Protein backbone atom coordinates (compact mmCIF):
# COMPACT_ATOMS: atom_id res chain seq x y z
CA UNK A 1 0.00 0.00 0.00
CA UNK A 2 1.41 3.36 -0.92
CA UNK A 3 -0.08 6.61 0.39
CA UNK A 4 -3.50 4.99 0.77
CA UNK A 5 -6.33 7.10 2.10
CA UNK A 6 -9.87 5.83 2.47
CA UNK A 7 -12.75 7.88 3.81
CA UNK A 8 -16.29 6.92 4.84
CA UNK A 9 -18.21 10.19 4.74
CA UNK A 10 -16.55 12.48 7.25
CA UNK A 11 -14.53 9.69 8.81
CA UNK A 12 -11.04 8.99 7.51
CA UNK A 13 -10.54 5.27 8.07
CA UNK A 14 -7.04 5.15 6.54
CA UNK A 15 -4.81 8.17 6.16
CA UNK A 16 -1.79 7.98 3.83
CA UNK A 17 -0.96 4.43 4.84
CA UNK A 18 2.26 2.89 3.53
CA UNK A 19 3.39 -0.64 4.15
CA UNK A 20 4.63 -3.62 2.26
CA UNK A 21 4.57 -7.34 2.97
CA UNK A 22 7.27 -9.62 1.64
CA UNK A 23 6.52 -13.07 0.29
CA UNK A 24 6.48 -15.71 3.04
CA UNK A 25 6.27 -13.25 5.93
CA UNK A 26 3.76 -13.35 8.77
CA UNK A 27 2.66 -9.79 9.42
CA UNK A 28 0.58 -8.58 12.33
CA UNK A 29 -1.72 -5.65 11.80
CA UNK A 30 -2.39 -4.17 15.22
CA UNK A 31 -4.42 -1.29 16.55
CA UNK A 32 -7.45 -0.41 18.64
CA UNK A 33 -10.96 -0.98 17.29
CA UNK A 34 -11.55 1.48 14.46
CA UNK A 35 -7.84 1.84 13.71
CA UNK A 36 -8.40 0.69 10.11
CA UNK A 37 -7.36 -2.98 10.19
CA UNK A 38 -10.47 -4.48 8.57
CA UNK A 39 -10.61 -1.62 6.05
CA UNK A 40 -7.03 -2.51 5.08
CA UNK A 41 -8.00 -6.14 4.41
CA UNK A 42 -10.99 -5.03 2.37
CA UNK A 43 -8.85 -2.68 0.30
CA UNK A 44 -6.24 -5.36 -0.33
CA UNK A 45 -8.98 -7.71 -1.59
CA UNK A 46 -10.73 -5.19 -3.81
CA UNK A 47 -13.89 -4.97 -1.72
CA UNK A 48 -13.24 -1.27 -1.28
CA UNK A 49 -11.44 1.21 -3.49
CA UNK A 50 -8.97 3.72 -2.05
CA UNK A 51 -9.79 7.41 -2.33
CA UNK A 52 -6.11 8.18 -2.79
CA UNK A 53 -2.93 6.17 -3.13
CA UNK A 54 -2.05 2.85 -4.65
CA UNK A 55 -2.88 -0.68 -3.56
CA UNK A 56 -1.23 -3.75 -5.05
CA UNK A 57 -1.86 -7.31 -3.97
CA UNK A 58 0.50 -9.87 -5.46
CA UNK A 59 1.28 -7.29 -8.13
CA UNK A 60 -2.38 -6.85 -9.11
CA UNK A 61 -4.63 -3.84 -8.70
CA UNK A 62 -7.49 -5.08 -6.50
CA UNK A 63 -9.88 -2.44 -7.83
CA UNK A 64 -9.41 -3.40 -11.48
CA UNK A 65 -8.66 -7.11 -10.94
CA UNK A 66 -10.62 -7.83 -7.75
CA UNK A 67 -11.81 -11.25 -8.84
CA UNK A 68 -8.29 -12.29 -9.85
CA UNK A 69 -6.85 -11.04 -6.54
CA UNK A 70 -9.46 -12.92 -4.53
CA UNK A 71 -8.71 -16.09 -6.47
CA UNK A 72 -5.28 -16.04 -4.78
CA UNK A 73 -6.23 -14.90 -1.29
CA UNK A 74 -8.01 -16.56 1.58
CA UNK A 75 -9.76 -14.40 4.15
CA UNK A 76 -10.84 -15.46 7.60
CA UNK A 77 -13.41 -12.83 8.49
CA UNK A 78 -13.83 -11.54 12.02
CA UNK A 79 -17.05 -13.53 12.41
CA UNK A 80 -16.80 -17.02 10.85
CA UNK A 81 -19.50 -16.12 8.28
CA UNK A 82 -20.96 -19.63 8.15
CA UNK A 83 -24.58 -20.59 7.63
CA UNK A 84 -26.03 -22.46 10.60
CA UNK A 85 -28.51 -24.27 8.36
CA UNK A 86 -25.83 -26.04 6.35
CA UNK A 87 -23.62 -28.92 7.40
CA UNK A 88 -19.87 -28.47 7.48
CA UNK A 89 -19.54 -30.75 4.47
CA UNK A 90 -22.17 -28.88 2.43
CA UNK A 91 -20.61 -25.55 3.31
CA UNK A 92 -17.15 -26.70 2.24
CA UNK A 93 -18.48 -28.08 -1.05
CA UNK A 94 -20.25 -24.79 -1.68
CA UNK A 95 -17.12 -22.73 -1.01
CA UNK A 96 -15.05 -25.09 -3.15
CA UNK A 97 -17.35 -24.34 -6.07
CA UNK A 98 -17.10 -20.63 -5.33
CA UNK A 99 -13.31 -20.75 -5.55
CA UNK A 100 -13.29 -22.88 -8.66
CA UNK A 101 -11.75 -26.02 -7.14
CA UNK A 102 -11.91 -28.54 -10.03
CA UNK A 103 -15.07 -30.63 -9.71
CA UNK A 104 -13.24 -33.96 -9.60
CA UNK A 105 -10.99 -32.66 -6.80
CA UNK A 106 -13.69 -31.12 -4.58
CA UNK A 107 -14.48 -34.12 -2.36
CA UNK A 108 -10.84 -35.08 -1.88
CA UNK A 109 -9.84 -31.51 -1.01
CA UNK A 110 -12.82 -31.00 1.31
CA UNK A 111 -12.24 -34.25 3.19
CA UNK A 112 -8.53 -33.56 3.44
CA UNK A 113 -9.15 -30.18 5.07
CA UNK A 114 -11.91 -31.46 7.34
CA UNK A 115 -9.48 -34.13 8.50
CA UNK A 116 -6.67 -31.63 8.99
CA UNK A 117 -8.91 -29.37 11.08
CA UNK A 118 -10.35 -32.29 13.07
CA UNK A 119 -13.91 -31.86 11.80
CA UNK A 120 -14.48 -35.14 9.95
CA UNK A 121 -16.64 -36.67 12.69
CA UNK A 122 -19.04 -33.73 12.67
CA UNK A 123 -18.88 -32.97 8.94
CA UNK A 124 -22.50 -33.98 8.30
CA UNK A 125 -23.90 -32.08 11.28
CA UNK A 126 -25.46 -28.65 10.88
CA UNK A 127 -23.06 -25.82 11.67
CA UNK A 128 -25.68 -24.42 14.06
CA UNK A 129 -24.64 -27.17 16.49
CA UNK A 130 -20.90 -26.46 16.28
CA UNK A 131 -18.90 -24.89 19.11
CA UNK A 132 -17.10 -21.58 18.50
CA UNK A 133 -13.80 -23.38 18.16
CA UNK A 134 -15.24 -25.74 15.56
CA UNK A 135 -16.73 -22.85 13.60
CA UNK A 136 -13.42 -21.05 13.64
CA UNK A 137 -11.62 -24.18 12.48
CA UNK A 138 -14.16 -24.67 9.70
CA UNK A 139 -13.79 -21.04 8.63
CA UNK A 140 -10.03 -21.47 8.62
CA UNK A 141 -10.38 -24.66 6.56
CA UNK A 142 -12.54 -22.72 4.12
CA UNK A 143 -9.80 -20.16 3.55
CA UNK A 144 -7.47 -22.95 2.40
CA UNK A 145 -9.80 -24.71 -0.06
CA UNK A 146 -8.23 -23.11 -3.12
CA UNK A 147 -4.72 -23.31 -1.67
CA UNK A 148 -4.13 -19.53 -1.62
CA UNK A 149 -0.57 -18.27 -1.21
CA UNK A 150 -1.79 -15.21 0.71
CA UNK A 151 -3.94 -15.40 3.84
CA UNK A 152 -5.73 -12.67 5.76
CA UNK A 153 -6.80 -13.68 9.24
CA UNK A 154 -9.00 -11.17 11.05
CA UNK A 155 -8.99 -11.91 14.79
CA UNK A 156 -8.38 -15.65 14.32
CA UNK A 157 -8.58 -16.49 18.03
CA UNK A 158 -11.12 -13.92 19.25
CA UNK A 159 -13.79 -15.42 21.51
CA UNK A 160 -12.08 -18.80 21.66
CA UNK A 161 -11.22 -20.60 24.87
CA UNK A 162 -7.48 -20.91 25.59
CA UNK A 163 -7.21 -24.47 24.30
CA UNK A 164 -9.05 -23.71 21.05
CA UNK A 165 -7.01 -20.51 20.65
CA UNK A 166 -3.78 -22.44 21.02
CA UNK A 167 -5.00 -24.93 18.41
CA UNK A 168 -5.69 -22.14 15.94
CA UNK A 169 -2.28 -20.55 16.66
CA UNK A 170 -0.57 -23.88 15.99
CA UNK A 171 -2.41 -24.13 12.70
CA UNK A 172 -1.38 -20.61 11.70
CA UNK A 173 2.22 -21.45 12.56
CA UNK A 174 2.05 -24.53 10.36
CA UNK A 175 0.47 -22.61 7.50
CA UNK A 176 3.27 -20.08 7.60
CA UNK A 177 6.24 -22.31 8.30
CA UNK A 178 5.46 -25.58 6.52
CA UNK A 179 3.14 -24.39 3.78
CA UNK A 180 5.17 -21.20 3.19
CA UNK A 181 2.21 -18.89 2.87
CA UNK A 182 2.22 -15.17 3.38
CA UNK A 183 -0.07 -14.36 6.29
CA UNK A 184 -1.49 -11.06 7.47
CA UNK A 185 -3.08 -11.29 10.91
CA UNK A 186 -5.27 -8.64 12.52
CA UNK A 187 -5.39 -9.15 16.24
CA UNK A 188 -5.85 -7.47 19.59
CA UNK A 189 -3.92 -10.27 21.20
CA UNK A 190 -0.41 -8.83 21.44
CA UNK A 191 1.19 -11.93 22.91
CA UNK A 192 -0.20 -13.86 19.97
CA UNK A 193 1.17 -11.30 17.51
CA UNK A 194 4.59 -11.47 19.16
CA UNK A 195 4.46 -15.24 19.06
CA UNK A 196 3.37 -15.59 15.42
CA UNK A 197 4.50 -12.54 13.49
CA UNK A 198 7.82 -11.76 11.83
CA UNK A 199 6.84 -8.13 11.76
CA UNK A 200 3.99 -5.94 12.95
CA UNK A 201 2.36 -2.79 11.63
CA UNK A 202 0.56 -0.72 14.25
CA UNK A 203 -2.26 1.47 13.04
CA UNK A 204 -3.68 4.37 15.03
CA UNK A 205 -6.67 6.32 13.75
CA UNK A 206 -5.94 5.15 10.24
CA UNK A 207 -2.24 6.03 10.25
CA UNK A 208 0.79 3.79 10.53
CA UNK A 209 2.13 4.42 14.00
CA UNK A 210 4.96 1.90 13.83
CA UNK A 211 6.22 -0.81 11.50
CA UNK A 212 8.92 -3.33 12.40
CA UNK A 213 9.91 -6.39 14.36
CA UNK A 214 9.13 -6.59 18.07
CA UNK A 215 12.75 -5.70 18.87
CA UNK A 216 12.62 -2.70 16.56
CA UNK A 217 9.38 -1.48 18.07
CA UNK A 218 10.69 -1.91 21.60
CA UNK A 219 13.71 0.15 20.63
CA UNK A 220 11.63 2.79 18.90
CA UNK A 221 9.26 3.08 21.81
CA UNK A 222 11.99 3.38 24.49
CA UNK A 223 10.08 0.82 26.47
CA UNK A 224 10.94 0.78 30.19
CA UNK A 225 11.95 -2.69 31.33
CA UNK A 226 12.03 -4.48 34.64
CA UNK A 227 15.49 -5.50 35.78
CA UNK A 228 17.06 -7.75 38.41
CA UNK A 229 20.39 -6.56 39.77
CA UNK A 230 22.61 -8.59 42.07
CA UNK A 231 25.48 -6.78 43.82
CA UNK A 232 27.88 -7.32 46.71
CA UNK A 233 25.67 -7.52 49.82
CA UNK A 234 27.59 -4.91 51.79
CA UNK A 235 27.27 -2.42 48.94
CA UNK A 236 23.50 -2.76 48.47
CA UNK A 237 22.72 0.64 50.06
CA UNK A 238 25.09 2.43 47.70
CA UNK A 239 23.73 0.43 44.77
CA UNK A 240 20.17 1.31 45.77
CA UNK A 241 21.01 5.02 45.93
CA UNK A 242 22.40 4.92 42.40
CA UNK A 243 19.67 2.75 40.87
CA UNK A 244 16.93 4.99 42.26
CA UNK A 245 18.06 7.73 39.87
CA UNK A 246 17.42 5.35 36.93
CA UNK A 247 14.14 3.74 37.88
CA UNK A 248 11.81 2.62 40.65
CA UNK A 249 13.19 0.16 43.19
CA UNK A 250 10.47 -2.40 43.79
CA UNK A 251 12.23 -4.73 46.23
CA UNK A 252 15.57 -5.21 47.97
CA UNK A 253 16.48 -8.65 49.28
CA UNK A 254 20.06 -9.23 50.43
CA UNK A 255 22.21 -8.21 47.50
CA UNK A 256 19.31 -8.38 45.03
CA UNK A 257 17.52 -5.28 43.81
CA UNK A 258 14.36 -5.52 41.65
CA UNK A 259 14.09 -2.41 39.58
CA UNK A 260 11.31 -1.22 37.28
CA UNK A 261 10.92 1.49 34.64
CA UNK A 262 14.48 1.62 33.32
CA UNK A 263 14.58 2.41 29.62
CA UNK A 264 16.72 0.08 27.52
CA UNK A 265 19.00 2.90 26.35
CA UNK A 266 19.92 3.86 29.93
CA UNK A 267 21.00 0.36 30.99
CA UNK A 268 24.66 0.89 30.00
CA UNK A 269 24.68 4.19 31.95
CA UNK A 270 23.31 2.42 35.02
CA UNK A 271 25.98 -0.26 34.89
CA UNK A 272 28.70 2.37 34.31
CA UNK A 273 27.51 4.39 37.33
CA UNK A 274 27.61 1.30 39.56
CA UNK A 275 31.09 0.35 38.34
CA UNK A 276 32.30 3.91 38.84
CA UNK A 277 31.01 3.82 42.43
CA UNK A 278 32.97 0.64 43.00
CA UNK A 279 29.92 -1.58 43.43
CA UNK A 280 30.64 -5.24 42.72
CA UNK A 281 28.07 -6.50 40.19
CA UNK A 282 27.23 -10.20 39.98
CA UNK A 283 24.20 -10.10 37.68
CA UNK A 284 22.23 -7.66 35.54
CA UNK A 285 19.14 -9.36 34.12
CA UNK A 286 16.77 -7.15 32.14
CA UNK A 287 13.39 -8.67 31.41
CA UNK A 288 12.79 -9.34 27.71
CA UNK A 289 10.54 -6.46 26.62
CA UNK A 290 7.25 -7.55 25.10
CA UNK A 291 5.35 -6.33 22.09
CA UNK A 292 2.60 -5.42 24.53
CA UNK A 293 4.87 -3.03 26.41
CA UNK A 294 6.01 -1.46 23.13
CA UNK A 295 2.43 -1.19 21.88
CA UNK A 296 1.26 0.44 25.09
CA UNK A 297 4.19 2.81 25.10
CA UNK A 298 3.50 3.82 21.51
CA UNK A 299 -0.24 4.11 21.92
CA UNK A 300 -0.08 5.80 25.33
CA UNK A 301 -3.20 5.74 27.45
CA UNK A 302 -5.51 6.28 24.50
CA UNK A 303 -8.59 4.07 24.51
CA UNK A 304 -10.53 2.88 21.49
CA UNK A 305 -10.76 5.37 18.63
Amino acid at each position, binding site marked *: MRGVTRRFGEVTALDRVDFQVEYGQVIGLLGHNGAGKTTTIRLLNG*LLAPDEGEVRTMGLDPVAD*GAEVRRHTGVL*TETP*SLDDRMSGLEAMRFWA*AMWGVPKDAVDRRVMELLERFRLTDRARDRIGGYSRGMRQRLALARTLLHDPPLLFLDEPTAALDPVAARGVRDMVRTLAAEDRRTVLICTHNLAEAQDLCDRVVILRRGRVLADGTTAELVGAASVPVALILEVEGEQVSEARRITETFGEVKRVDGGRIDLDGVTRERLPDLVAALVEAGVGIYRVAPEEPSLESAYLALYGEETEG
Partner: protein
Amino acid sequence: MNWRSIFAIVRRDLTVVARAKAVMIPLVVVPVILFVGLPLLVSFAIDAAGSDIEDLLPLIEALPERIRASLGDGSLLEQAQVYLLEYQFATFFLIVPLMVCSVIAADSFAGEKERKTLEALLYTPTTDRELYLAKLLGPWLAAITVTVASYGLYLVVCNVALAATIGRPVALTPLWVVVVLWLSPGMAALGLSVLVIVSARVRGFQEAYQVGGVLVLPIVALVAAQFAGLLFVDTAFAILLGSLTWAVAVAVMAVGFGRFRRERLLEQV
Protein backbone atom coordinates in the same frame (compact mmCIF):
# COMPACT_ATOMS: atom_id res chain seq x y z
CA MET B 1 -19.65 -15.40 -16.61
CA ASN B 2 -18.86 -18.12 -14.07
CA TRP B 3 -22.03 -20.23 -14.14
CA ARG B 4 -20.66 -22.76 -11.68
CA SER B 5 -20.41 -20.10 -8.98
CA ILE B 6 -23.79 -18.66 -9.93
CA PHE B 7 -25.53 -22.02 -9.63
CA ALA B 8 -23.62 -22.82 -6.44
CA ILE B 9 -25.07 -19.68 -4.85
CA VAL B 10 -28.54 -20.47 -6.21
CA ARG B 11 -28.39 -24.02 -4.85
CA ARG B 12 -27.01 -22.87 -1.50
CA ASP B 13 -29.65 -20.12 -1.11
CA LEU B 14 -32.51 -22.47 -1.92
CA THR B 15 -31.17 -25.21 0.35
CA VAL B 16 -30.89 -22.77 3.22
CA VAL B 17 -34.40 -21.43 2.56
CA ALA B 18 -35.84 -24.93 2.45
CA ARG B 19 -34.47 -25.52 5.97
CA ALA B 20 -36.04 -22.43 7.52
CA LYS B 21 -39.54 -23.17 8.82
CA ALA B 22 -40.39 -19.48 9.14
CA VAL B 23 -39.66 -19.06 5.44
CA MET B 24 -41.12 -22.32 4.19
CA ILE B 25 -44.47 -22.14 5.99
CA PRO B 26 -45.84 -19.23 3.91
CA LEU B 27 -44.47 -20.82 0.74
CA VAL B 28 -46.57 -23.92 1.35
CA VAL B 29 -49.55 -22.58 3.25
CA VAL B 30 -50.44 -19.58 1.06
CA PRO B 31 -50.70 -21.51 -2.24
CA VAL B 32 -52.69 -24.26 -0.53
CA ILE B 33 -55.13 -21.74 0.95
CA LEU B 34 -55.43 -19.74 -2.26
CA PHE B 35 -55.58 -22.55 -4.77
CA VAL B 36 -57.11 -25.44 -2.91
CA GLY B 37 -59.13 -23.94 -0.07
CA LEU B 38 -60.44 -20.86 -1.80
CA PRO B 39 -61.65 -22.45 -5.08
CA LEU B 40 -63.39 -25.19 -3.13
CA LEU B 41 -64.98 -22.57 -0.89
CA VAL B 42 -66.10 -20.53 -3.90
CA SER B 43 -67.50 -23.58 -5.60
CA PHE B 44 -69.41 -24.76 -2.54
CA ALA B 45 -70.58 -21.23 -1.71
CA ILE B 46 -72.08 -20.81 -5.17
CA ASP B 47 -73.74 -24.23 -4.96
CA ALA B 48 -75.14 -23.34 -1.56
CA ALA B 49 -76.29 -19.90 -2.60
CA GLY B 50 -79.50 -21.19 -4.22
CA SER B 51 -81.63 -18.36 -5.55
CA ASP B 52 -79.21 -15.83 -4.07
CA ILE B 53 -76.94 -16.68 -6.98
CA GLU B 54 -79.01 -14.23 -8.98
CA ASP B 55 -77.21 -11.47 -7.11
CA LEU B 56 -74.28 -12.28 -9.39
CA LEU B 57 -76.36 -11.67 -12.48
CA PRO B 58 -75.45 -7.96 -12.79
CA LEU B 59 -71.76 -8.88 -12.57
CA ILE B 60 -72.08 -11.45 -15.31
CA GLU B 61 -74.25 -9.18 -17.44
CA ALA B 62 -71.70 -6.36 -17.14
CA LEU B 63 -68.99 -8.51 -18.69
CA PRO B 64 -67.91 -7.72 -22.24
CA GLU B 65 -69.66 -9.87 -24.80
CA ARG B 66 -66.51 -11.83 -25.77
CA ILE B 67 -65.97 -12.78 -22.10
CA ARG B 68 -69.61 -13.75 -21.60
CA ALA B 69 -69.38 -15.93 -24.68
CA SER B 70 -66.41 -17.74 -23.18
CA LEU B 71 -68.42 -18.64 -20.08
CA GLY B 72 -70.48 -21.12 -22.09
CA ASP B 73 -74.23 -21.67 -22.43
CA GLY B 74 -74.77 -23.17 -19.03
CA SER B 75 -76.92 -21.93 -16.18
CA LEU B 76 -76.13 -18.72 -14.33
CA LEU B 77 -74.65 -20.88 -11.57
CA GLU B 78 -72.25 -22.51 -14.02
CA GLN B 79 -71.37 -19.22 -15.67
CA ALA B 80 -70.61 -17.65 -12.29
CA GLN B 81 -68.39 -20.57 -11.35
CA VAL B 82 -66.51 -20.44 -14.65
CA TYR B 83 -66.12 -16.68 -14.41
CA LEU B 84 -64.71 -16.76 -10.89
CA LEU B 85 -62.44 -19.75 -11.39
CA GLU B 86 -61.17 -18.90 -14.85
CA TYR B 87 -60.97 -15.11 -14.74
CA GLN B 88 -60.93 -13.82 -11.18
CA PHE B 89 -58.53 -16.47 -9.92
CA ALA B 90 -56.19 -15.82 -12.83
CA THR B 91 -55.37 -12.36 -11.46
CA PHE B 92 -55.43 -13.65 -7.92
CA PHE B 93 -52.84 -16.16 -9.01
CA LEU B 94 -50.23 -13.40 -9.50
CA ILE B 95 -49.88 -13.14 -5.73
CA VAL B 96 -48.00 -16.46 -5.72
CA PRO B 97 -44.85 -15.51 -7.67
CA LEU B 98 -44.61 -12.18 -5.86
CA MET B 99 -45.03 -13.75 -2.45
CA VAL B 100 -42.52 -16.52 -3.16
CA CYS B 101 -39.84 -14.25 -4.53
CA SER B 102 -40.29 -11.70 -1.71
CA VAL B 103 -39.87 -14.35 0.97
CA ILE B 104 -36.87 -16.01 -0.66
CA ALA B 105 -35.14 -12.82 -1.75
CA ALA B 106 -35.60 -11.38 1.75
CA ASP B 107 -34.00 -14.49 3.24
CA SER B 108 -31.24 -14.90 0.69
CA PHE B 109 -30.13 -11.29 0.77
CA ALA B 110 -31.25 -9.36 3.84
CA GLY B 111 -31.30 -12.58 5.84
CA GLU B 112 -27.76 -13.31 4.78
CA LYS B 113 -26.65 -9.96 6.15
CA GLU B 114 -28.54 -10.66 9.35
CA ARG B 115 -26.87 -14.04 9.75
CA LYS B 116 -23.51 -12.41 8.93
CA THR B 117 -22.78 -14.82 6.11
CA LEU B 118 -22.50 -12.20 3.38
CA GLU B 119 -18.98 -10.99 4.05
CA ALA B 120 -17.32 -14.31 3.24
CA LEU B 121 -19.26 -14.41 -0.03
CA LEU B 122 -17.89 -10.99 -0.94
CA TYR B 123 -14.34 -12.28 -0.51
CA THR B 124 -14.83 -14.93 -3.20
CA PRO B 125 -13.70 -14.38 -6.81
CA THR B 126 -17.29 -13.88 -8.02
CA THR B 127 -17.81 -10.60 -9.80
CA ASP B 128 -20.53 -8.15 -8.78
CA ARG B 129 -22.46 -9.10 -11.91
CA GLU B 130 -22.35 -12.83 -11.08
CA LEU B 131 -23.40 -12.17 -7.50
CA TYR B 132 -26.31 -10.01 -8.64
CA LEU B 133 -27.45 -12.56 -11.19
CA ALA B 134 -27.23 -15.41 -8.66
CA LYS B 135 -29.24 -13.48 -6.11
CA LEU B 136 -31.95 -12.83 -8.73
CA LEU B 137 -31.95 -16.28 -10.24
CA GLY B 138 -32.47 -18.32 -7.06
CA PRO B 139 -35.70 -16.69 -5.88
CA TRP B 140 -36.95 -16.36 -9.49
CA LEU B 141 -36.54 -20.07 -10.21
CA ALA B 142 -38.22 -20.88 -6.91
CA ALA B 143 -41.09 -18.51 -7.72
CA ILE B 144 -41.61 -20.12 -11.13
CA THR B 145 -41.49 -23.63 -9.64
CA VAL B 146 -44.01 -22.80 -6.92
CA THR B 147 -46.19 -20.97 -9.47
CA VAL B 148 -46.30 -23.92 -11.87
CA ALA B 149 -46.88 -26.34 -8.98
CA SER B 150 -49.68 -24.15 -7.64
CA TYR B 151 -51.29 -24.04 -11.07
CA GLY B 152 -51.07 -27.82 -11.28
CA LEU B 153 -52.73 -28.12 -7.91
CA TYR B 154 -55.39 -25.60 -8.91
CA LEU B 155 -56.13 -27.50 -12.12
CA VAL B 156 -56.61 -30.73 -10.20
CA VAL B 157 -58.85 -29.14 -7.57
CA CYS B 158 -61.01 -27.22 -10.06
CA ASN B 159 -61.44 -30.10 -12.41
CA VAL B 160 -62.15 -32.67 -9.73
CA ALA B 161 -64.78 -30.34 -8.26
CA LEU B 162 -66.32 -28.90 -11.41
CA ALA B 163 -65.29 -30.42 -14.74
CA ALA B 164 -68.09 -32.97 -14.68
CA THR B 165 -70.72 -30.29 -13.96
CA ILE B 166 -69.43 -27.83 -16.52
CA GLY B 167 -68.66 -30.42 -19.14
CA ARG B 168 -65.20 -29.22 -20.13
CA PRO B 169 -61.80 -28.75 -18.45
CA VAL B 170 -61.69 -25.77 -16.13
CA ALA B 171 -58.85 -23.21 -16.05
CA LEU B 172 -57.08 -24.86 -18.95
CA THR B 173 -57.32 -21.81 -21.19
CA PRO B 174 -54.96 -19.54 -23.16
CA LEU B 175 -55.43 -16.91 -20.42
CA TRP B 176 -54.02 -19.26 -17.79
CA VAL B 177 -51.15 -20.30 -20.02
CA VAL B 178 -50.23 -16.65 -20.48
CA VAL B 179 -50.63 -15.94 -16.77
CA VAL B 180 -48.51 -18.89 -15.68
CA LEU B 181 -45.79 -18.79 -18.33
CA TRP B 182 -45.54 -15.10 -19.20
CA LEU B 183 -47.15 -12.76 -16.66
CA SER B 184 -46.14 -14.60 -13.47
CA PRO B 185 -42.45 -14.89 -14.40
CA GLY B 186 -42.54 -11.19 -15.28
CA MET B 187 -44.16 -10.32 -11.96
CA ALA B 188 -41.55 -12.41 -10.15
CA ALA B 189 -38.75 -10.65 -12.04
CA LEU B 190 -40.19 -7.22 -11.24
CA GLY B 191 -40.73 -8.03 -7.59
CA LEU B 192 -37.23 -9.43 -7.32
CA SER B 193 -35.52 -6.53 -9.01
CA VAL B 194 -37.20 -4.18 -6.54
CA LEU B 195 -36.45 -6.43 -3.58
CA VAL B 196 -32.77 -6.80 -4.38
CA ILE B 197 -32.44 -3.01 -4.35
CA VAL B 198 -34.42 -2.80 -1.12
CA SER B 199 -32.61 -5.72 0.52
CA ALA B 200 -29.27 -4.02 -0.01
CA ARG B 201 -30.57 -1.15 2.14
CA VAL B 202 -32.28 -2.97 4.98
CA ARG B 203 -30.64 -4.82 7.82
CA GLY B 204 -32.71 -7.93 8.27
CA PHE B 205 -35.13 -10.50 6.91
CA GLN B 206 -38.26 -9.09 8.57
CA GLU B 207 -37.66 -5.59 7.24
CA ALA B 208 -37.12 -6.86 3.69
CA TYR B 209 -40.11 -9.20 3.98
CA GLN B 210 -42.38 -6.33 5.03
CA VAL B 211 -41.30 -4.32 2.01
CA GLY B 212 -42.00 -7.39 -0.11
CA GLY B 213 -45.54 -7.44 1.30
CA VAL B 214 -46.15 -3.99 -0.15
CA LEU B 215 -45.40 -5.32 -3.63
CA VAL B 216 -48.55 -7.47 -3.49
CA LEU B 217 -50.79 -4.41 -3.14
CA PRO B 218 -50.99 -3.62 -6.91
CA ILE B 219 -52.16 -7.21 -7.47
CA VAL B 220 -54.82 -6.80 -4.80
CA ALA B 221 -55.88 -3.56 -6.57
CA LEU B 222 -56.05 -5.45 -9.88
CA VAL B 223 -58.24 -8.15 -8.34
CA ALA B 224 -60.51 -5.52 -6.75
CA ALA B 225 -60.77 -3.58 -10.02
CA GLN B 226 -61.82 -6.72 -11.84
CA PHE B 227 -64.42 -7.54 -9.18
CA ALA B 228 -65.75 -4.01 -9.44
CA GLY B 229 -66.06 -4.40 -13.21
CA LEU B 230 -63.51 -1.67 -13.92
CA LEU B 231 -61.37 -3.92 -16.07
CA PHE B 232 -61.28 -7.48 -17.31
CA VAL B 233 -58.10 -9.46 -17.51
CA ASP B 234 -58.42 -11.56 -20.64
CA THR B 235 -55.65 -13.15 -22.70
CA ALA B 236 -54.81 -10.00 -24.67
CA PHE B 237 -54.73 -7.90 -21.51
CA ALA B 238 -52.52 -10.48 -19.78
CA ILE B 239 -50.07 -10.49 -22.71
CA LEU B 240 -49.95 -6.69 -22.65
CA LEU B 241 -49.59 -6.52 -18.87
CA GLY B 242 -46.90 -9.20 -19.01
CA SER B 243 -44.95 -7.27 -21.63
CA LEU B 244 -45.20 -4.10 -19.58
CA THR B 245 -44.15 -5.95 -16.44
CA TRP B 246 -41.11 -7.47 -18.15
CA ALA B 247 -40.11 -4.09 -19.59
CA VAL B 248 -40.29 -2.42 -16.17
CA ALA B 249 -38.53 -5.40 -14.56
CA VAL B 250 -35.65 -5.21 -17.03
CA ALA B 251 -35.37 -1.43 -16.47
CA VAL B 252 -35.36 -1.83 -12.67
CA MET B 253 -32.83 -4.67 -12.96
CA ALA B 254 -30.56 -2.42 -15.00
CA VAL B 255 -30.82 0.26 -12.29
CA GLY B 256 -30.26 -2.35 -9.61
CA PHE B 257 -27.22 -3.72 -11.37
CA GLY B 258 -25.76 -0.23 -11.66
CA ARG B 259 -26.12 0.16 -7.90
CA PHE B 260 -25.05 -3.33 -6.96
CA ARG B 261 -21.51 -2.93 -5.71
CA ARG B 262 -19.65 -4.91 -3.07
CA GLU B 263 -18.76 -1.65 -1.44
CA ARG B 264 -22.41 -0.74 -0.87
CA LEU B 265 -23.18 -4.16 0.56
CA LEU B 266 -20.25 -3.93 2.92
CA GLU B 267 -21.56 -0.75 4.46
CA GLN B 268 -24.14 -2.80 6.31
CA VAL B 269 -22.16 -5.96 7.00
